[in-house]
């Protein structure tokens, strides 16, 4: 689950108004909801413009200097001088874009180097770079699990996973979030001989909780299923080498595919899949979201490759980010806020708001006091919760975390939430 503002990650059909020939009539309810929220004179939480970006943790937003606590820039690589320099150099040497598919004229030296960096980062045999993280999930899932195959997935999966399931036309069997027993029951009932793919995420981005991968991967293997784990929110941070929850749980050698993105810890845009499957390279020919789109610009793959190589040696930054996560979690809890997890499990700390209206009010107080967080609201959230989602960066200093807590205290008191 994640970025959906007015829609859940799991796609829901919208009903058109009977007899109305305007194809847009199915959006009328959403239009009314949005107008209702804006008519209360609030700053639109979903229309924020960053006029200037000062650093990975600071920007000028709507005219105010603001601490950023709602980006996915976990490792703060966006302004790393080596990374920026690599991008500039590639822009000068290779131009602004490839204007072609990876399978035609769109594979440059930089794309190969980027895939090489990924293979080294994960110590895996194969790496395939997609133009976005969304396309990586869409492409791999839809291509490997087709009609007659079964996909068993967590109900809180990201939209790109749901869309990949729908595109491939496999039988889709969801189970209750992080429920090991519910997952096993469903695996057990799948007809004998059917192809099985279990899809899990390392970190679930709404509450910042992690999956019990040690148990879940073992069960998937017991029933002969292939396992795909999306590690979008853990790469670079979780695990000794930053390879994700699969590394931390000691199951990296048992998973068949890891999906990741360049738009979070890596600090640019793009997606990837790494695997040890002996036939993996055929994906480059049969995976439609890989074939039928232009490849990433040379500057993007150059910055990604440089950033990935730096993340291999990021253990000090990882340690500092854990400190930040622990400090923010403890600080918010001590102020009396209700949090999404008992203990900090990732770089995401979700603050649970009493309802949407109070949540929107609190979001606005925070932004006026100089702090940006993500407002996450139903139907994109689990169990209809309204959340203020805080995502930390390794470049947040200890003092900044202190400032963040002061702003939360001030805003929480202004709005009567604490």
């Amino acid at each position, binding site marked *: 689950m994640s970025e959906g503002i007015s829609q859940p990650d799991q796609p829901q059909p919208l009903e058109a108004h009977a007899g109305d020939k305007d194809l847009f009539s199915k959006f009328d309810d959403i239009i009314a909801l949005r107008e209702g929220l804006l008519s209360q004179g609030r700053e639109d939480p979903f229309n924020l413009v960053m006029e200037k970006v000062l650093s990975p943790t600071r920007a000028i937003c709507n005219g105010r200097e603001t601490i950023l606590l709602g980006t996915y820039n976990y490792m703060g690589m966006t302004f790393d001088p080596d990374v920026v320099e690599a991008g500039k150099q590639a822009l000068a040497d290779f131009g602004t874009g490839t204007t072609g598919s990876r399978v035609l004229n769109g594979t440059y030296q930089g794309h190969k180097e980027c895939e090489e960096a990924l293979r080294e980062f994960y110590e895996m045999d194969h790496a395939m770079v997609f133009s976005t993280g969304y396309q990586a999930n869409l492409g791999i899932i839809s291509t490997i699990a087709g009609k007659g195959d079964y996909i068993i997935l967590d109900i809180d999966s990201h939209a790109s996973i749901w869309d990949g399931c729908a595109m491939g*036309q496999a*039988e*889709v069997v*969801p189970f*209750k979030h992080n429920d090991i027993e519910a997952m096993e*029951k*469903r695996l057990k*009932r*799948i007809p004998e001989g059917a192809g099985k793919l279990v899809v899990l995420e390392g970190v679930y981005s709404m509450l910042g909780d992690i999956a019990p991968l040690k148990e879940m991967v073992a069960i998937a293997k017991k029933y002969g299923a292939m396992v795909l784990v999306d590690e979008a929110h853990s790469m670079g941070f979780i695990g000794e080498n930053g390879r994700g929850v699969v590394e931390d749980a000691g199951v990296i050698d048992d998973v068949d595919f890891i999906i990741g993105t360049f738009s979070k810890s890596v600090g640019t845009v793009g997606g990837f899949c790494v695997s040890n499957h002996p036939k993996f390279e055929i994906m480059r020919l049969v995976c439609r979201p890989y074939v039928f789109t232009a490849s990433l610009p040379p500057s993007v793959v150059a910055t990604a490759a440089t950033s990935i190589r730096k993340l291999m040696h990021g253990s000090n930054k990882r340690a500092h980010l854990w400190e930040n996560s622990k400090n923010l979690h403890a600080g918010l809890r001590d102020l009396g806020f209700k949090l999404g997890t008992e203990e900090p499990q990732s770089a995401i700390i979700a603050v649970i708001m009493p309802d949407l209206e109070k949540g929107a009010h609190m979001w606005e107080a925070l932004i006026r006091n100089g702090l940006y967080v993500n407002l996450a609201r139903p*139907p994109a959230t689990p169990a209809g919760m309204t959340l203020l989602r805080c995502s930390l960066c390794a470049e947040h200093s200890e003092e900044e975390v202190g400032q963040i807590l002061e702003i939360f205290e001030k805003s929480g008191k202004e709005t009567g939430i604490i």
Partner: protein
Amino acid sequence: MDRAEVDTKIRELIEPFNKKGVELKDETTFQNDLEFDSLTVMDFVAEIEDEFDIIISMNQQAEIENYGQLVDAVHKLQAGA
């Protein structure tokens, strides 16, 4: 189990989810009459799956709009299990 027995069992299972006590007929719809949201659907489907030891995939769920269709589908699935 014959269709009537499946019907009786599902009536029992649906009770805690039927908060408004809507009368169940074959044409009662889950979305409009019973007002099930996606989370309720997941919990309710899980109950049925566990009771009958079957899988109702989301692809199959998409074809089931009303109560009668559910009873038919479960009757068919459990007979094949």
